């Protein structure tokens, strides 16, 4: 079972906030991150990673299912680069 927003809300609730307030806090936190990325601004969380906004040029691509050629238009995407600390934690190395 994947961890969901509800699980994170429950952890915040454990700090002593009401359930409603905990939901509000997490929703607001996500809104702030999303709105920042929408403005094409990167979000850097030290010890966790960086959410980057990148502009992609138009390029020729292929539908992997049908093999048809197609043009991928110019677009803006979000990427995530993990921090060295998170990487070490996931690989079970000391940090």
């Amino acid at each position, binding site marked *: 079972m*994947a*961890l*969901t*927003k509800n*699980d*994170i809300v429950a*952890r*915040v609730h454990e*700090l002593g906030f009401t359930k409603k*307030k905990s939901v*509000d*806090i*997490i929703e*607001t*936190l*996500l809104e*702030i*991150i*999303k709105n*920042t*990325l*929408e403005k*094409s*601004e*990167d*979000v*850097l*969380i*030290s*010890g*966790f*990673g960086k*959410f980057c*906004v990148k*502009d992609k040029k138009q390029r020729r691509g292929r539908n992997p299912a049908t093999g048809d050629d197609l043009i991928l*238009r*110019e*677009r*803006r*995407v*979000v*990427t*995530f680069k*993990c921090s060295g600390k*998170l*990487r070490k*934690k*996931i*690989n*079970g190395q000391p940090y």
Partner: protein
Amino acid sequence: MVKSELIQILKDKVDLSKTQAEKVVDIFFDTISDTLSKGGRVEIRGFGSFSVNSYKSYVGRNPKTGAQIKVPPKKLPFFKVGKQLKKLVDNKTGG
């Protein structure tokens, strides 16, 4: 945006003390990294999902010196952008 700015904005928006806002933001990212370090998945509707990909060992090269090196097997976190966030960030390029 860096973590301290995120904490500051959250604090003002949901009326928390600085310590409370710091705690909440830490809990949010710690819960995600703890889950990933145990090999679990994280799904946050409208934002995205985190999972861990495993990579086998391979022989690589130091791009500076050209020397061959054996890269040990590793795990890396992977972030898949959610539909809502993807649209939000991309709408500026006209999609």
